[in-house]
């Protein structure tokens, strides 16, 4: 390894998982960030899946800059995920947070040794399990603001059509149209408030039901409409941890919740490697 190269970490597993009864796991086909070959670094019975990266691109200063570049981040996040997702189908593992770079194999070994106990605990807790993502939005409802189809303009455009009845009827209906509009508007606002409240309550119920069916659950911050691409507010952005064998029943339960809660738009993603159940506040748990 040259001085200007570093080591990118993808995942941690037990060394024993790499040599099953059917022989050693072959990772030679697997490429990661920058299409570099994935290899393993072992220490104290644990193994890290790593690949070499150029420090010109992945050194500290470069990382800071590159993390702000969406195209770079998109590509690297997908390459990182690809390795973890592929490996998680072969053996139980812990995903490593994006952008964990070491100066060399010795530093990786030292980290494995230093954190061995916590890593083994985490592997026992999530290894071999998968996570499912469930997002819920308030279902599409009537627009909250007036628009061409529902506002007082409706009456004007009808007049513009020049229908014979329109001209003679106008003086009589002017006040009526205005009042009807105000009533309709008030009803709309009330309905919108009630719909929002029902959706929030519904999302809480969905989360409680799904949590009861999962080994564990985590909440991610709701994504803003700009990020989610959905205009309605996101009311739930959750991850649920399941045994691999529990996925069929769980996804069916999500479908059941979607049907039971017409006030929500429910979206399912997964199965994911158990990213949301290691690291962060749970670190070392």
């Amino acid at each position, binding site marked *: 390894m040259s001085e200007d190269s570093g080591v990118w970490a993808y995942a*941690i597993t037990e060394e024993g998982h790499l040599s099953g009864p059917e022989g050693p796991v072959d990772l030679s086909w697997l490429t990661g960030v920058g299409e570099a070959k994935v290899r393993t670094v072992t220490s104290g019975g644990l193994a890290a899946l790593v690949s070499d990266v150029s420090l010109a691109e992945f050194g500290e200063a470069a990382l800071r800059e590159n993390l702000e570049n969406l195209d770079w981040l998109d590509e690297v996040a997908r390459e990182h995920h690809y390795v973890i997702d592929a490996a998680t189908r072969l053996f139980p593992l812990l*995903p490593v947070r994006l952008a964990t770079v*070491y100066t060399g194999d010795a530093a990786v070994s030292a980290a494995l040794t230093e954190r061995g106990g916590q*890593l083994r605990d985490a592997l026992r807790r999530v290894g071999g399990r998968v996570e499912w993502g469930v997002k819920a939005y308030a279902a599409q409802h009537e627009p909250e603001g007036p628009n061409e189809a529902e506002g007082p303009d409706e009456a004007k455009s009808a007049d513009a059509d020049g229908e014979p009845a329109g001209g003679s009827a106008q003086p009589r209906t002017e006040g009526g149209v205005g009042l009807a509009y105000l009533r309709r508007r008030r009803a709309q606002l009330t309905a919108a408030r009630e719909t929002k409240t029902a959706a929030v309550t519904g999302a809480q119920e969905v989360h409680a039901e799904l949590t009861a069916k999962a080994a564990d659950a985590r909440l991610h911050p709701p994504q803003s409409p*700009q990020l989610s691409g*959905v205009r309605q507010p996101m009311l739930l952005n959750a991850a649920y941890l399941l045994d691999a064998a529990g996925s069929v029943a769980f996804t069916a339960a999500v479908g059941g919740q979607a049907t039971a809660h017409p006030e*929500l738009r429910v979206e399912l993603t997964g199965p994911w490697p158990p990213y949301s159940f290691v690291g962060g506040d749970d670190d070392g748990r």
Partner: protein
Amino acid sequence: MTDADLARPDLTSAGYPAERVSLVDLLDRVLAGGVVVTGEITLSIADVDLVVISLRALLTSVSALTGQDPEAERADRR
């Protein structure tokens, strides 16, 4: 159960590609999740909120793609 059993979001209204949406879900996970094993090089950026960095990048990109942010676009329609 099939995908059709679940309501799908209307991605066409967002004005940017669906793959960007799944990138958000991915970033939720790879930036906020994953085990933190101190890396020598990334030690000093551990205090920087990676999620904030990436979302800033994402928002910048979305505005660039749509030409304006969705709030402004909505206001224009009224």
